[in-house]
C-alpha cells in the first residue's frame, strides 16, 4: 500500500514543536511538561491547564496521505485544526508551503485556507438551506468566483464523486455516505494541494466506509493531492495512509509506514493496537524471506531457477496465492533480476502469525524436517 510514497520530497505542511494548551497559565504548563516532565494529570491539577497537543513535529510531503490515528481525547482533532489555524498554537511553528501561519495577517491566512489547504469535517457541515450544487460551489463563491464558473467547477467535482444527478437536491435528502461525498466534492472544487480530513468516515457504516476509503485514496492519488487524515480506526489508517502517526495523550508516539507500525510497534500501547490487525496485506516478501543461498544448500535437489518468482514488495496474500497455485516448495524473491531470498510455507505462516522472532525462526527453523 505504501508503494507510491511521495516521489517528490517537497514538504507541504510542517509542524515544529507545536503545543496547544487550553487554560490560563499556558506558558508555565508547557514549561512544566517539557522541562520537568510533569504528567498531564498533574498539570491539570497544578495549573488548571489541559494539554491538547504536546510538542508535535511532523512533515507532510507532496502527494502523500498522512494518517493520524488516535483514540478520542488523544488530541488529533486539535492537531488537525492547528494545521490551518482554526486553533492557534500555544507554542511552536506551523508552516504551510513554507509560510509560517503565525506571521500571516487575516487576508493572507484566508488566501492560504481558500487556495492551498481544504478541510472535510466529520459532521460534513453542509449548509441545509442550499442545494447540493450550491454547497459544492460554496468555496468558490466565498472567493468571489462568478456563478457560471463556480457551478461548472462544482458540477465537475460532483461527477468525480459520482453524484452529478443529485446537484439540485438538498442535503437533507441525501444519505450519510452521499453527504460525505458532497463534502469531498466541495473540497475538490477549491482545488487545494492539501486536504485535511477530520474523521470524515467515522459515522458511516462499515461497507460504505470501505467504499469511500477506496474512492478517497483513488481520487487523492489520481489528482496528486496530499492529505492529512484523522481517524480512530487503525485499519482505516492502514488502508489509506502512506505514513501513519499514532497519537496518545497529545503526543505522537510513532510515525512510519503501516508495515513499520505493525512489524515494529514503538511501545506496548502501539503493540496492543496492532495485535488484532490482519497482516495479509501489510507484510511483504522482503520482511519474511529466508536467505536463498542457505536454502539452496539445504535443498540441493531443487532448482532455484525453476521456482515461481515474486518481487520483494509482494504481500503475504499474493505470495500465498502464488505458492498454492504453482504447487512449488517455495517462492524465489527477485529484485532487479537478482535473487534476494526465498519464501517458504513456514515463512508465510510465521508472517501471518506475526511472531517477533521471524528472522531467526525463518532462517534456522524446521527446514530440517523437509
Amino acid at each position, binding site marked *: 500500500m505504501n508503494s507510491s510514497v511521495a516521489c517528490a520530497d517537497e514538504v507541504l505542511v510542517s509542524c515544529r514543536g507545536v503545543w496547544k494548551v487550553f487554560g490560563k497559565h499556558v506558558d508555565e504548563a508547557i514549561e512544566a511538561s517539557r522541562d520537568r516532565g510533569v504528567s498531564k494529570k498533574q498539570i491539570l491539577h497544578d495549573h488548571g491547564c489541559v494539554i491538547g497537543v504536546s510538542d508535535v513535529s511532523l512533515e507532510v510531503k507532496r502527494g502523500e496521505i498522512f494518517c493520524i490515528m488516535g483514540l478520542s481525547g488523544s488530541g488529533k482533532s486539535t492537531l488537525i*485544526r492547528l494545521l*490551518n489555524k*482554526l486553533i492557534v498554537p500555544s507554542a511552536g511553528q506551523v508552516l504551510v508551503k513554507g509560510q509560517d501561519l503565525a506571521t500571516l495577517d487575516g487576508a493572507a*491566512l*484566508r*488566501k*492560504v*485556507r*481558500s*487556495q492551498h489547504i*481544504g*478541510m472535510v*469535517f466529520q*459532521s460534513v*457541515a*453542509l*449548509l*441545509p*438551506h*442550499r442545494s447540493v450544487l450550491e454547497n459544492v460551489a*460554496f*468555496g468558490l*463563491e*466565498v*472567493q468571489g468566483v462568478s456563478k457560471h464558473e463556480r457551478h461548472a467547477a462544482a458540477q465537475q467535482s460532483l461527477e468525480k464523486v459520482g453524484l452529478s444527478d443529485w446537484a439540485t437536491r*438538498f*442535503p*437533507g*435528502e441525501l444519505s450519510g455516505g452521499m*453527504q460525505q461525498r458532497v463534502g469531498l466534492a466541495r473540497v475538490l472544487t*477549491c482545488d487545494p494541494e492539501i486536504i*485535511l480530513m477530520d474523521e470524515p468516515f467515522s459515522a458511516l457504516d462499515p461497507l460504505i466506509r470501505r467504499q469511500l476509503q477506496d474512492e478517497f485514496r483513488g481520487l487523492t492519488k489520481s489528482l496528486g493531492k496530499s492529505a492529512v487524515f484523522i481517524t480512530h480506526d487503525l485499519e482505516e489508517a492502514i488502508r489509506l495512509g502512506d505514513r501513519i502517526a499514532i497519537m496518545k495523550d497529545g503526543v505522537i508516539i510513532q510515525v512510519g509506514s503501516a508495515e513499520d507500525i505493525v512489524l515494529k510497534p514503538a511501545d506496548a500501547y502501539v503493540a496492543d493496537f496492532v495485535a488484532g490487525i490482519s497482516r495479509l496485506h501489510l507484510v511483504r516478501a522482503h520482511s519474511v524471506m529466508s536467505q536463498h543461498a542457505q536454502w539452496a544448500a539445504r535443498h540441493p535437489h531443487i532448482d532455484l531457477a525453476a521456482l515461481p518468482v515474486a518481487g520483494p514488495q509482494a504481500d503475504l496474500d499474493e505470495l500465498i496465492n502464488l505458492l498454492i497455485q504453482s504447487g512449488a516448495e517455495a517462492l524465489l524473491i527477485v529484485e532487479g533480476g537478482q535473487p534476494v531470498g526465498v519464501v517458504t510455507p513456514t515463512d508465510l505462516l510465521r508472517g501471518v502469525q506475526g511472531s517477533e522472532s521471524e528472522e531467526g525462526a525463518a532462517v534456522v527453523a524446521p527446514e530440517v524436517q523437509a
Partner: protein
Amino acid sequence: MNPTEMRVSPGAWLAPAIDWLNANFHPLFAFISRVVDTVLGAFETVLLALPGWGVIALVTLLALLLINLRTAVLAAAMLGFCWLSGLWTASMQTLALVSVSVLLSVLIAFPLGILAARVKRFEQMSSPVLNIMQTVPPWVYLIPAVMIFSLGKVPAIMATVIYGVAPMMRLTTLAFRQVPRNLLELGQALGATPRVILLKIEIPAAVPTLLVGLNQCILLSLAMVVLAGLVGAGGLGAEVTRGLTRMEMGLGLRAGLAIVAVALLLDRLSRGLLQRKPIQQS
C-alpha cells in the same frame, strides 16, 4: 425606624433625569419625533390610499400568490371584518403603527442581539435590563415617552419599541448561538471573511429562530399599540378607550374583535411570508 417608612423610589431620580433630558436634548427629540411621524404618515397614506375593498382584494391576491389559499381566505375574512365593522381607518392606523414599531424594534434589536451572541460580557450586562423591560407593565413606558414626546403617535411608537426590542433581541441572540459550530468552522476553513460568514452562513442558519422572534415582536407590539390608545395614538386603541370611557359595550367589542382580526392577519401573513421557502433539515 419602621422599614416601611423608607421609601425606595427609582422614580425619584428617574423623573429629574427625564426632565433634564427634555430640557437639554429637546431639538434631538423633536427631530426624532419628526422623522418617526413622517415615516408613519407615509405608511398610513399607503394603506389608506385605496378604498377598503381594494386593499382587501390586493392583500388576498398577494397572499394567494405568495403564500397559499388558506392564508388568503383568512386574510380576506379578517380584513373584511375590519371594513364591514366600520373601523377601517382605525384598523389601518393601527397596522401602520405596528409596522413602524416593528421596523424600529428590529433595526435596534438585530445588531444588539448579534453583539450579545458574540460578546458574552455584553449579554451578561444586557440580560437583566431585558428582564426588566419585559416584566414592567407596558403602560409604565408611556409615562416617560409622553414626558419626552408629548401626546400622540410618536410616544406610542417609542413605548412600543421599548417593549418589542426585548423579545426580538433575546431570540436574535439565541438564534446566533444556535448556529452549529461546524458551519462556522467550515466558513473559516474555506477562507471566508467574517462578513461572508455572517451573511451566507450565520443568518440563513439563524432564520427559523429569528422568525419566532419577529412573530413575538409583532404580536407584543400590537398589544402595546392598542394600549397606547390611552395617550392619543389613535387607531383601534382609541376606539377601545372611547368605548371604555363612554361605557359603550358595542363599540368596545367591535374594536376588540377588530384587534383580534389584525393580530391574526399579521401573525399568519408574517409567518407565511417568512416561511415560504421551507428550510431543509439534515
